[in-house]
């Protein structure tokens, strides 16, 4: 395989990892409260600035990752408790508008506190080096992003499919009334879903900063939108679908730029949204969902 193609693949996989991490949380939250959470992308920004803050405070990197996950989880829980819980039972449009309001609030609060000036992310210099892999080589940052995402997703799948809490989360998402009748603490379970999904978004913020080098208060918009598209591609509400959708989107985006003539590179997002439209026309339930589940 040529170095060029390999590099594009690695690049696509690492971008896809970021999309997948954000999309999974997005999808979990939709699955459990049927809410398209447009504030979800802003947690990527929160995670990125939390990382920067800790780096400036001299916290070592492994500890930083733990803290960022924690900050993300707490932010998600705060949003759920303060805004979405009181909205529960309201119509979907009300909830949707509330998530937009939360997003605008977070962005503007960040603009006020942090100023709109983009900042350098201060990723350690050794992460920029290239790692030789036989005849080809890849950026260490990309490899670390791919490996960290893999570890986070594996942990998530374990929690969701092998633990009592995860099973309860799936039960609430499947049938809220039955879950209540089984004595499952619905509020606690929804809170946990928000915590986990938001922690993943914050971790994606750390990696986003590492990959692109600069962060700013409005940076959450793009990952939020891309995560939404990844969910639509994979089938909204399914974790596996969101993950595959995220990787597919990342790879498609990078390969579009890499394989098409350079003058088309500026149409990257046009291509992404074109893909969204085609998928919505051809298979609106998502590529990886076999049938649209009936909802009683």
């Amino acid at each position: 395989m040529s170095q060029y193609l390999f590099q594009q693949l690695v690049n696509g996989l690492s971008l896809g990892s970021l999309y997948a991490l954000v999309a999974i949380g997005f999808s979990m939250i939709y699955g459990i409260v049927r809410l398209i959470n447009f504030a979800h992308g802003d947690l990527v920004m929160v995670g990125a600035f939390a990382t920067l803050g800790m780096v400036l405070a001299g916290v070592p990197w492994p500890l930083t990752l733990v803290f960022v996950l924690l900050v993300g989880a707490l932010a998600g829980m705060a949003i759920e408790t303060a805004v979405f819980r009181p909205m529960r039972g309201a119509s979907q449009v009300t909830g949707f508008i509330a998530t937009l309001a939360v997003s605008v609030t977070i962005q503007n609060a960040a603009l006020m506190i942090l100023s709109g000036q983009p900042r350098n992310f201060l990723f350690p210099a050794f992460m920029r080096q290239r790692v030789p892999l036989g005849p080809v080589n890849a950026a260490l940052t990309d490899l670390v992003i791919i490996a960290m995402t893999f570890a986070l997703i594996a942990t998530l799948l374990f929690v969701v499919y092998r633990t009592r809490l995860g099973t309860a989360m799936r039960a609430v998402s499947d049938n809220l009334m039955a879950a209540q009748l089984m004595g499952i603490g619905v509020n606690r379970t929804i809170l946990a879903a928000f915590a986990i999904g938001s922690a993943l978004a914050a971790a994606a913020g750390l990696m986003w900063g590492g990959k692109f080098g600069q962060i700013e208060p409005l940076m959450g918009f793009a990952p939020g939108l891309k995560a939404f598209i990844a969910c639509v591609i994979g089938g909204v509400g399914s974790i596996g679908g969101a993950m595959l959708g995220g990787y597919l989107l990342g790879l498609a985006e990078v390969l579009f730029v890499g394989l098409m003539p350079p003058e088309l590179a500026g149409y990257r997002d046009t291509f992404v949204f074109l893909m969204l439209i085609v998928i919505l026309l051809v298979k609106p339930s998502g590529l990886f969902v076999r049938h649209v589940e009936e909802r009683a």
Partner: protein
Amino acid sequence: MLEVRDLHVVRGATHVLQGVSLEVCAGETAALLGANGAGKSTTLQTLSGLLRPRSGTAVFQGVDGPIDLARASPEAIVRQGLVQCPEGRQIFRSLTVTENLAMGAYARRDRASAGAAFAQVHALFPVLKERANALGGVLSGGEQMMLAIGRGLLAAPRLLLLDEPSLGLAPQMVERIFDVIETLKRGGATILLVEQNAAIALEIADRAYVLENGRVAISGSGQELAADDRVRQAYLGAPA
């Protein structure tokens, strides 16, 4: 074990329950009969804490003593031992049979005894063991009903509410389900059964109530109601 006094429930603009009173004693099987829309399911949903009554009380002798179901949370009610198998089975379609049962055991306090309870449910419904790893959604209607009852049993009920267990099932399966209810009853279980199929419900009920327009219109022992002319004409298909 359960004493409901003058329960009023309003859903939207409809005054669904207009003063329902009933009781269920320990070890008894009570049946709640009535036409569609009489308020049977609303009664059960209120008892499980899913709906809040406008007025009235529903006192249940829970594990830790009496609680008022009109004020407790659904979670607390299950933990006190009032467990409902809801209408339409409402199993978790995307969870496996075993996961469905595990969710039944979610609110158990003595998780140590959950293993024995699993074995009991498997003995009652061997098919749930055979299909342990099948998704709930692919089971047949009868199997789903067994799963719903098994899931309810795993919550360690002191009082089991069954909402329309015969709904949508083949006659053979209805018989099978009622055999199980009979077995549970002989084992000392306390059951409140909601049924449209009055004939089969009155066969096993010690006590029965007929709801009409949100009120208890007729009540008495199972045999009394089976012999009552109004019940025979309206619910058992006897000629007028």
